[in-house]
Structures are given as structure tokens and as C-alpha cells.
């Protein structure tokens, strides 16, 4: 983990000096994670891809403003968060809750062509995540799928840790209630 962080920092230093290949290597390490974060947030593949490209472009343009290269991850997600919420504002007037109708994704429950999870469960999870508001959904994605610590999430979404916890635990209670019937049916 530490070795990886040092390598990222080295790539960032090279990219700051104008080494585009070093930056492309850095992108290759983070693009899948950032894309999936955005996909779960906006529930639209093309939007998620467009936003991902914008995120990496803005990150490149602002790389010199990153004071601590070891904090590249939360810094990158902060940009991604801003991009996603800009899209939400364009989609809907401010103040309204962003509820999503997730796309039906073919092959969602397969890895390498083999069925891994029951399709009912993945569909139910997609639907349940879509019923959360944008803040709750983002917190679940950052904690459960991206594995950030509460302090890092607070930095990304620019909110106190207590707010982050409150959003996550409320969301988990809602998800538990939504998914309970499906879990019983699957088992």
C-alpha cells in the first residue's frame, strides 16, 4: 500500500513536469475506480464516462495545486464529486432530491461470462441504491465500494465526519429494509 502510494507520488511529480505518459499511467491506475464511483452516483454509463474524462483532464490541469501527492486519491474524488454534482444541478433544479432510475445493465451479474451473483440480488441492489438520495448514495459508494475512511469521505464531500456517518447509517438502514425480502427469497 505504501509502495503504491510512493509510486503514485513519483508519477505525479513527473506529470507535473509535463510527462504525459506518466500521467496516463496514473490514469490507468485510477480510471476504473473513478468510473465506477461516478457510474453508481449518476447511474448512466455515458455520463459516467464523460465525467471521468473531465475529472482526469481537470486533475491534470490542476495537478500543481495538489499540495500533498500522498492525498491524490481523496483529491481526485473531490474533483469527481464536484463534476457529478454539477451534472445533478444541470439535470434538476437545486434542492430536489436526485433519485435515479438505474440503467439495466446486461451482464451485470457476470464476471468473465460466468454467473457470480443471483441476478435478482444485483437488480434489487441497483434499485435500492437508486432510491437513496444523492448524498446517501454517494456515502455508501465511497465507504462500501471504494473503501474510504470517514475522514477521507468528509474531505471529498466537504462535510463533517458526523454528517458522513449519519448519511451512511441512515442509508444502510434503508438498504437493509429494501433488501431484506430479496435476501430471504435468494436464500
Amino acid at each position, binding site marked *: 500500500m505504501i509502495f503504491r502510494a510512493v509510486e503514485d507520488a513519483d508519477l505525479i511529480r513527473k506529470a*507535473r513536469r*509535463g510527462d*504525459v*505518459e506518466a*500521467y*496516463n499511467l496514473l*490514469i*490507468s491506475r485510477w*480510471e*476504473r*475506480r473513478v*468510473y*465506477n464511483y461516478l*457510474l*453508481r452516483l449518476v447511474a448512466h*454509463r455515458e455520463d459516467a*464516462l464523460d465525467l*471521468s*474524462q473531465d475529472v*482526469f*483532464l481537470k486533475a*491534470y490541469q490542476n495537478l*500543481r*495545486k495538489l499540495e500533498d501527492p500522498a492525498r491524490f486519491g481523496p483529491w481526485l474524488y473531490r474533483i469527481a464529486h464536484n463534476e457529478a454534482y454539477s451534472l445533478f444541478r444541470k439535470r434538476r433544479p437545486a434542492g430536489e432530491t436526485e433519485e435515479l432510475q438505474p440503467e439495466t*445493465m446486461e451482464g*451485470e*451479474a457476470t*464476471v468473465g461470462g460466468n454467473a*457470480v*451473483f*443471483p441476478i435478482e*440480488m*444485483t437488480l*434489487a*441492489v*441497483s434499485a435500492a*441504491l437508486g432510491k437513496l438520495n444523492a448524498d446517501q448514495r454517494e456515502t*455508501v459508494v465511497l*465507504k*462500501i*465500494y471504494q473503501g474510504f*475512511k*470517514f475522514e477521507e469521505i468528509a474531505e471529498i464531500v466537504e462535510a463533517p465526519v458526523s454528517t458522513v*456517518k449519519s448519511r*451512511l*447509517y441512515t442509508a*444502510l438502514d434503508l*438498504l*437493509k429494509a429494501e*433488501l431484506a425480502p*430479496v*435476501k430471504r427469497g435468494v436464500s
Partner: protein
Amino acid sequence: MSCSPFDLRDYYFKELAENERRQTEIHVKTCAHCREELDRLRGTEAALLTLPDQEIPQRIGFISDPVFEPSPMSRWWAAFWGSAARLGFASAAMLSIALIVFSFTRPVPQVSAPAPASNAALQAEVTKRVNEAVQKAVAESDARHAHQVAELLAATEKRNTLEREALLVRVQEYLDVEKKRMDRVILASNDYGEQR
């Protein structure tokens, strides 16, 4: 509601401090209710993780095209403005240069002409006040000195008078004694002449 000493969900997500984690762990071993709560959390997380990550449909990458790359000057300029330390140093240097230039090229003040007049008046006023104070002090000193001299003279005169009077008394007494002695001599002489 959990009976755990610390938030069971914080414990589950490994967000407790080491001592808090240990206390919660001990509690969970003996509390069936909390174990069930942890199982529910685990179940919810497992359900969420059935949603796998998607492959990105198109790789993201930038090309290194000299046309779009910033020139070395632009890069230096961007780096300059991006670094607070360099910016601070440059600001300090510019301020120093400005101070030095100003000190050499400072214009002669335009309103300095009336200054000597006001200075002279001020100096005259000061001199006047000083002279007055000196004169007053000298006068007071002279008066004090004259008074002391007068007192001294009076005392001396009085003492002289007393001494003179005492001398006169003593002279008178001496004359009286001498007169008596002469009288006695005359009487004795007369007696001697009559006897002869």
C-alpha cells in the same frame, strides 16, 4: 438499540480507536444481540457487494502533442503562480526593490518652505521662555542672596554693637579702677607731703 459501549457500526467499519475497538470486541463476545446486529450489517454489505464493478467502456488517455503542450515559459509561469513559497519570495523581493528605488528617487518635499519660518518662530519662543525662566530664577536667587546678606549684616552689626558696648563697659571699669588707683596715689602723696 445497541448496548455496545461504542457505536457497533463504527466497530464494524473499523473506525474505532484501538482501546475502543478492544472494549467493543470484549462486549460483542458476550452479547448475542450485538452479534446479531453485526451479522445484519455484514449481510447488508454482502448484498451491496453483489453489484460488481463495471469495466470502463473506453480507456482514458492523453496524447503528448507539442502543439497542445505548454511552452517551457508557460510551464515556468504556471509553476511560479502555483507555488505559494515562490510567489511570496517574489513579492518580498519586489517590495525590497521598490523600497530601495524609492529611497534613491524620493522627491524633495514641496511644502518644506514654510518650515524654517515656523521653526525660527518656535525657536524664538523657546529662547524667550528659557530667558524668562532664567531671569526669574536669577532674580529669585538674587533676592534670596540679598536677604541672606542683609540678615548677615544685621546680625554682624548687632554683634558688633554688643561687643562695642561690652568693650566700653570694660574700658569704663578700667578707667574707674585707674582713677581710684590714682586717687589713692594722690592721697598717699598728699599724706607723705604733709608728714614732711
